[in-house]
């Protein structure tokens, strides 16, 4: 029964976000602040993960393609499609669920426990609209951008590993990248990125906003938010792949 209760409260929270802002300027300021936190705050980890994922993909693909009949440029094609279809959107979003998701849950949880949310309510501010909406909007803008950056860096990381380890030359890798490219894959990856962005921002916001208790509960809510977000990302990944591919 708790799960249905939680789903109901989650939907009410989402509904509660849609109201006329008390002051558009303040909401915009909060939105920009969240863009900075979610976007630039996660850029470093996203860059590192993407480069290494691309590099490892190149080496492992080369390791498995032992037939001399398969041209080396195929490695680039496989790395490109793997990074675009799965690694950049899914893996990066799972990492972001940990980085940005836990930050959102603990920030809202701390505000709840220290009565800062109550203070905003008393002032006559719709806290769901002011605190949650800008976070979701910022995630919907910044996370797909991070995914695009992850795609580019992942592919570049693959090239770097390929040339440095002597698996294939840069020219062959570049040639392989352009062969059999399906632009729909990018559309699919961005669709996934948007769905995952919503999960990454709204689920932790829910757990943080409704936290009860003290510091221990904030930690628990944060962990739960990350775990639930990751499970939902993997579930949504499967559903979207089954529907769109």
């Amino acid at each position: 029964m708790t799960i249905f209760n939680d789903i109901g409260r989650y939907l009410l929270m989402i509904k509660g976000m849609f109201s006329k802002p008390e002051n558009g300027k303040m909401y915009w300021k909060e939105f920009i602040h969240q863009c900075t936190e979610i976007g630039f705050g996660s850029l470093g980890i996203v860059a590192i993960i993407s480069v290494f994922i691309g590099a490892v993909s190149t080496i492992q693909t080369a390791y498995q393609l032992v037939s001399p009949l398969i041209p080396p440029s195929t490695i680039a094609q496989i790395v490109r499609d793997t990074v675009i279809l799965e690694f950049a959107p899914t893996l990066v979003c799972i990492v972001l669920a940990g980085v940005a998701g836990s930050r959102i849950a603990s920030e809202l949880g701390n505000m709840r426990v220290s009565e800062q949310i109550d203070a905003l309510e008393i002032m006559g501010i719709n806290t769901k609209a002011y605190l949650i909406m800008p976070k979701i909007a910022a995630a919907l803008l910044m996370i797909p951008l991070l995914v695009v950056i992850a795609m580019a860096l992942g592919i570049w990381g693959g090239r770097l590993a390929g040339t440095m380890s002597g698996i294939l030359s840069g020219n062959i890798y570049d040639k392989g990248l352009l062969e059999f490219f399906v632009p729909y894959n990018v559309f699919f990856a961005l669709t996934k990125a948007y769905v995952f962005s919503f999960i990454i921002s709204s689920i932790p916001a829910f757990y943080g906003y409704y936290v009860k208790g003290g510091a221990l509960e904030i930690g628990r809510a944060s962990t739960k938010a990350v775990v639930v977000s990751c499970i939902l990302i993997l579930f949504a990944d499967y559903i979207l792949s089954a529907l769109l591919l």
Partner: protein
Amino acid sequence: MIEVKNIKKSFDGKVVIEDVSTVMKAGQCNLIIGTSGSGKTVLQKCIVGLFEPDSGEVLYSGNNFTAMKGEEKTEIRKEIGMLFQGSALFDSLNVEDNIMFPLNMFTHNTHKQKLDRVNEVLNRVNLPGVNKKFPAELSGGMKKRVALARAIVLNPKYLFCDEPNSGLDPQTSLVIDKLIKEITIEFNMTTVVNTHDMNSVMEIGDYILYMYQGRKEWEGSKKDIIFSKNQLLNEFIFASEFLQDAKDMRMLEETGKIPNHRNMDLMLDKDTAPLAPPDQGE
């Protein structure tokens, strides 16, 4: 003026507030007192709208707040200031931005006008020059004063204070109490203070509502407390020997006799009298 009519509130079937009615007048400090768990915080949260009462009404200057929806409620809330137990200052903002926050949200004043107002309220709470400090850099008493400044920055008609003295030393508590009292009179606010600090009751209480197990057990003025025959109230207020003695002294002044069975000799004994200085001889 705030009218509370037959408020009831329960959580998971457990009744926390049971049919409480009262009237809180403007220009005076209305105190809700009671032991921990007596329901005073829940009552205050029902009055300000943080909790939805199961039944009953709260009227702000005759307007039924509990029956209001969205926009109307927001308009009333703009007239409410609240000082929270833990101050509830926004950690990521400095003092100036904390106090300026309601001004930024609800006014279209220039930055200069807003800054002037911030400095004005900071001076009012005797805390000038701390504009750029962050909440983490302030002491408990300073945080309370900044929170009070933020609560009054929009000139509210109603001021709510939840345990304003919790965690503060007696001297700082007195400063906060006096500030609340002065501000209440100065701006003719309806102030509602939630407390179990007896010094506050005696210092600022104009009207006192005593809660016991979710019920209104007693209400009256500070002076009425001294002469009250309500046993539960007396047990709560005069729980300490010191306050009991203070009451007896007051009774002696007012009526010339002490109605209970306490031994005045004990009170007036130099060695055991509560205000006797500590023995310096050893």
